[in-house]
């Protein structure tokens, strides 16, 4: 069921159209990757959804409430994390979280419980009494992440949440977001770290120059853009390499679909069906025994590059 509905959204900065007439819906319990090059309108869209920027036109419905006419109800269950970490420099870490727990209508007892819980989840318990001014960039990012999820929002809007985080914190963040999605929250996350997005997003929305290039589940997008499978092989014997080259020629695979590197060779197949598996079977029938072998789909980075390249062209 759609929990966020965006219709014909347009955001203008003077004559520049930052967001140009985009429409999409976000379903409950799903994680959406929000991609696009710099200046493609991701941040403006997220800000408009969070109610901190007035769109030039378009409708935004959050949890069934129109953001323009029914603002308080629409924002009741929305968590928003901007691309930088806005903090009160002179407050203690727990005080900062307490302030925003109060903003979401929690009483003192609830606040204490939630603040303690989120300090633990984001690994900030040891910094509970520390002044925010003294925190590192990564810690601030974790603190703002905790603030965003403090009220158990149904709609979570994250703009570059992983920037400045170490690998352990990133993994922790991914796990937390998966938990949120499992309880039914809809998550829109923009990030430049595409390799990580692929591990946990269900769907993608890709913007280019303010327009939506493509949107949908990963499989749907792969099908739409004709994304195929990748067969990666590592050979231990030189005769296997010769057989491989011969079979490649017989199958009529163009050289630009073959990539070699670090002892491996990767062949891209255009079709999603069993073309790659058939090719591998044929090799093995001819006695080839690869040292390593894997068949994978296009990851988020590949999809983004393909879609982006097509748009620019």
């Amino acid at each position, binding site marked *: 069921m759609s929990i966020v509905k965006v219709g014909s959204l347009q955001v203008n900065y003077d004559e520049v159209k930052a967001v140009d007439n985009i429409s999409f819906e976000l379903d409950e319990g799903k994680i959406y990757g929000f991609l696009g090059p710099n200046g493609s309108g991701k941040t403006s869209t997220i800000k408009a959804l969070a109610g901190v920027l007035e769109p030039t036109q378009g409708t935004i419905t959050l949890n069934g409430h129109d953001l323009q006419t029914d603002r308080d109800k629409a924002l009741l269950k929305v968590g928003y994390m901007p691309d930088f970490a806005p*903090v009160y420099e002179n407050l203690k870490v727990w005080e900062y979280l307490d302030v925003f727990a109060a903003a*979401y*209508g929690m009483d003192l007892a609830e606040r204490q419980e939630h603040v303690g819980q989120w300090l633990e989840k984001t690994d900030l318990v040891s910094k509970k009494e520390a002044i925010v001014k003294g925190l590192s960039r990564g810690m601030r990012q974790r603190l703002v992440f905790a603030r965003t999820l403090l009220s158990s929002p149904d709609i979570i809007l994250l703009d570059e949440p992983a920037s400045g985080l170490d690998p352990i914190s990133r993994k922790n963040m991914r796990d937390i977001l998966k938990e949120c999605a499992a309880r039914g929250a809809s998550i829109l996350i923009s990030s430049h770290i595409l390799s990580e997005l692929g591990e946990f997003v269900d769907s993608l929305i890709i913007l280019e120059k303010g327009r939506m290039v493509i949107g949908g589940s990963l499989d749907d997008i792969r099908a739409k853009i004709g994304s195929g499978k990748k067969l990666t092989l590592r050979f231990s014997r030189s005769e296997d390499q010769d057989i491989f080259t011969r079979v490649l020629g017989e199958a009529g695979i163009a050289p630009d679909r073959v990539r070699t590197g670090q002892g491996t060779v990767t062949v891209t197949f255009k079709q999603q069906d069993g073309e790659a598996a058939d090719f591998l079977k044929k090799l093995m029938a001819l006695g080839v025994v690869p040292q390593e072998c894997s068949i994978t789909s296009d990851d988020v980075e590949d999809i983004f590059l393909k879609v982006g390249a097509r748009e620019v062209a």
Partner: protein
Amino acid sequence: MIMKKLNDNALFLSCWYERSRPIYVMCLGGLIAFVMLLSYLSAMQYPPKELTPFQVMLNICEVTQIFVLLIFGPLFVAAMGSREKMSGTLDFHRNSPEGVYDKIAGLVFGGAWLEWVIFGILLGAELLLSLGTFKGPERVIMFNVSIAISALLFQTTAALFSLLTTKQDSKSNPLMLVVLLMFVGPMISMAVFTPIGSALSHVLGCGAAGYVFQKGGEWLPQGFFFNLDLPLIVLQVISQVPLIFIMVNALARTFCQPDSPAWSKESVLRICFFILFLVTGFCVGAITHQDDIVYPWGGHHNGYHSVLLDQAGLYTFIDVALGMAAGLFLAPTYFQRKKLLVLRAKGQVANDWLSDGASAFFPGLVYVGLSTGFYLFYLLALKVNWLCGSAIIIQAAAYILGFTGLLEYYRLSPYRNNKIWLVTVLGVWWCLLPWFGALLRNVTPGGEPLTLLSPLTGFIQTQKWLRGESSSDVVLLAAPVIAAVLCWIAAYKQQQTFKN
């Protein structure tokens, strides 16, 4: 609306935590106590004859309250508001589901909670001290009510201006405004003891001083508003409470509509009506009670006609200055205009002449109508002939509408980001051409219309007309009227181009 408890209010808590560090509270509290003690000891060195030690202490408490709540309070609210804006946490509060009036209350009371606590403590002390003096608790309460209302106005104003500061501005902007409001305003109003000065003194809450600095058991003279004799506190409420509502409305828009102007066109017109109403009310009060007014320099008024003439001249100035200031809010920006056109195309705008993106022409006309309505009082009372009256009204309208038209053209035109263009055009219009006209007038009688192009030199002509020193010739007004029409033709053309 039921307001949330302050200890569950996010903005209040954010300010509370920051300002409740024991060292900070002790420093401020200790400093105030030390200053009060020194003041008392210094006063008792040479005790005034008519004042008892209780009375001296009471006066010190009252003066301290003024400083703490009316000076420190707005400064801290402005600082807290700037902190929200600069750090970006304001967006979190905009995004939170907390009611907008809770947010406003949190910022206004949270920013200055320590000052309000000190105010409350001093109020308790004053009530005790008043039992031993001639003032009595009722005057202490009146004084405190007066201070509290002023504090609400100053603090909401400080909160609004701090939230309107952009990141590019320095933090000093809202602070400078508050300082200006509090120091320069009363000084000007005291220096120029005119009915307008008296209006300003009520807006600034100077009425409270009447409850502090009184001799013996006498009350200070009451204030005059139209033909009413009203207690100072009532005049203060009349002057300040509507302004508080206007500030709160603007704050609400700042939270809910971050990219729209803080004041809607309706609010701007309401403020204008209110200011012109106050000016006229105090002016009528001054005229009808001119025999009761005691000027601080011990002088006397120069007669009914002279007072009225001065007030009419002052009204002209206020009318045009206010109209131009209103024009800054009434003329739409490119963004607002664009948004309005989109909404109109989708049939979502019903009554659009007051929308943010609508042209300033009709709201400008409404302002001119309002100001003319009040102006008629002055002109009728002065028994100015209809030709002269029309000339003055047309002149003021031409300045206001001309400036607003130019501003509208500028904001919708491709020059909208080029402030030098606007300054140059205004410089030519208001300075160069009138200066050329003044030079021309020395050589030939034909230069007068050019001097009337500028509101600055135009006022001199208005004064001459009012005083009958020069015959009013409506034809002379052709220049400012033509300038205004040209500005509006340009603005209209720009609107058309914009649509395409």
